[in-house]
């Protein structure tokens, strides 16, 4: 049952607003800011391209979740791993994949990151150890367990970040994966992008105890909740979690955020009020980070304008590239089905 005190925690206004301390270089901070803007603009363009029928299938966007993404992915090192879910456009961008190859995938083209086979939900980038987006809710969490186990098996210093949704925490796959990650003391950080809804279902309608971070304890993880609209708060939490992970102590982070748009492009999100959406937009992570940077003298208005212009150009170029890239030839229908199959498959 939800106690009143906890329920109010789900409101953005109760979140911490302490002045942020930065140890990051200007360059690093601006890279973070630029990435948040890129994700936002990329998703705007995705939406536009969907309505123009360039993109099909299910398409889930990250508007509003930029702080959870950049805050958790930027601290990762090149040799760390990511396992994600279907709402992952921003995740793979933050990991450094080329926007044009991501857009080409959304267009279903041969130059897409999954060569047009995966689409929006199934982006992949082996070189960046981005182990894919998956469409079965919570079905990717056992994969993160496996990647983490591999690290331990190979005695490497790698961390696996598993991004997942709040609704998926009701599924048995989350339970089995988190328990085993804790049991084997794996260097895995699980970040719940708690956007308060799984489709039209609120967290309170899906979890008997909606304080999801509290599950950490039962799974042998350190559990922590963080303001997911504050990129620096997420980043600090992630940095702590990475330190613990290296010591074999997994962490379960619940990052409180909000998706501005519907569950997918097709969802008009009638199950929530305009006021609720606005109350979160008022906490916009990009604007908030901009204020923080501005207050700390780490960004100027001109720099912002410049970043935005660069990002816009990048996104336009991505669309152009995608338009140009060919659809996979139907003769390749059976490609990639098996590795070195015997002749009679």
């Amino acid at each position, binding site marked *: 049952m939800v106690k009143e005190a906890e329920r109010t925690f789900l409101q953005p206004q109760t979140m911490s607003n302490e002045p942020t301390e930065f140890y990051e270089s200007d360059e690093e901070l601006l890279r973070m800011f630029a990435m948040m803007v890129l994700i936002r603009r990329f998703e705007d363009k995705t939406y536009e391209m969907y309505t123009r029928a360039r993109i099909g*299938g299910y398409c889930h966007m990250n508007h509003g979740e930029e702080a959870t993404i950049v805050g958790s992915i930027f601290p990762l090192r090149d040799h760390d791993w990511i396992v994600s879910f279907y709402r992952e456009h921003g995740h793979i961008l933050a990991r450094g994949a080329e926007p044009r190859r991501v857009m080409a995938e959304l267009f279903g083209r041969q130059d897409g990151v999954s060569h047009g086979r995966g689409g929006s939900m199934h982006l992949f980038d082996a070189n960046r150890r981005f182990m894919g987006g*998956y*469409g079965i809710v919570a079905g990717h969490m056992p994969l993160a367990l496996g990647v983490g186990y591999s690290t331990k098996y190979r005695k490497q210093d790698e961390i696996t970040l598993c991004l997942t949704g709040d609704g998926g925490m*009701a*599924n048995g796959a989350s339970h089995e994966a988190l328990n085993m990650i804790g049991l084997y003391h794996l260097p895995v950080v699980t970040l719940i992008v708690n956007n308060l809804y799984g489709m039209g279902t609120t967290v309170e309608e*899906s979890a008997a105890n909606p304080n999801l971070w509290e599950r950490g304890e039962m799974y042998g993880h350190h559990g922590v909740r963080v303001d997911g609209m504050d990129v620096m708060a997420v980043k600090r939490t992630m940095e702590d979690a990475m330190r613990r992970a290296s010591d074999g102590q997994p962490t379960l982070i619940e990052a409180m955020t909000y998706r501005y748009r519907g569950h997918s492009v097709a969802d008009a999100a009638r199950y929530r009020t305009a006021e609720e959406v606005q109350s979160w937009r008022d906490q916009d992570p990009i604007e908030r980070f901009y204020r923080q940077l501005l207050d700390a003298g780490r960004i100027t208005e001109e720099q912002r304008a410049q970043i935005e212009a660069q990002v816009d150009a990048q996104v336009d170029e991505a669309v152009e590239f995608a338009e140009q890239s060919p659809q996979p030839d*139907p003769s390749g229908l059976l490609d990639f089905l098996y590795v070195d199959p015997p002749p009679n498959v």
Partner: protein
Amino acid sequence: MPVLTYRQALNEALREEMNRDESVFCLGEEIGRFGGSYRVTEGLLDEFGPERILATPISELGIIGLATGAAMTGLRPVAEIMTINFIMVGMDQLVNNAAKIPYMFGGEAQVPIVVRTPSGAGHQLTAQHSQVLEVWFAYVPGMYVVAPSTPADAKGLLKTCIRDNNPILFVENVLLYNDKGEVPDGEHIVPLGKAAIRREGDDVTIVSYSRMVNVALQAADALADDGISAEVIDLRSLRPLDMDTVLASVRKTNHAMIVHEGWRKYGAGAEIAAQIQELAFDYLDHPVQRVTGAEVPLPYAQSLEAAALPQLEFVVDGARTMVGKR
């Protein structure tokens, strides 16, 4: 007769059965305020309230298990699994519990549940969201697997299934929901285990079910232009499987073709082909043919997806070749 969409016909069946029998209730993800992922349960929450239209967490074992346990106490749950692709995480409850309970407890318990779920590809939903998996359940004794192809059957079969006392997988199709057709008002019941002859013909029997019946009918039109008269049989259910109707037709036409969307090898068509040759061997002028989806996880790109789905022209060409009018 009123014209309804397949979706509306299902909705009407649910509404009528819930009004008729208080022990009927619905459960599943997003079936309440959201109205159902494919809007089949739209409006029912307002009419019946949240206990009878129970929107659940993303817990497929929980959903099917809840339905099964409740059914054992005398209720008649209708569970929705959002799409058949997600049934894997819940199927243990259906196959190891629901389908086995009546038998393994020696008839001491019954499990009158219906698990509704859409199957099939279309709209670039890709590998994890475009599967046709009902054949797995048709394999399981103790289960029924029903799959209507028309709005009238959608209503009539769903009503029958809700009143039936066995565990039933009720397979809808993502591309049929907007199909329109005449649907009898009120009490309209379609019996289980009786295939429908959708079009009569003499030269070749095309056996199909669910959405592919439409493709078969289109093919029959095209074949008619060539002077080939095709009989189109809609199985309506994979278990019970009405081979009597199929065999009677094949004994008349001497040619049989099966068309379905699922993968070919170990697909539903294999069983039908195997039985036709077992039971009408001497009537066959040609091997039974199958037209199916390509054996790949469904790819995203339009060019590839189109190539992976069963094509009208394969049905037409196959039938032509078979009856020797190519």
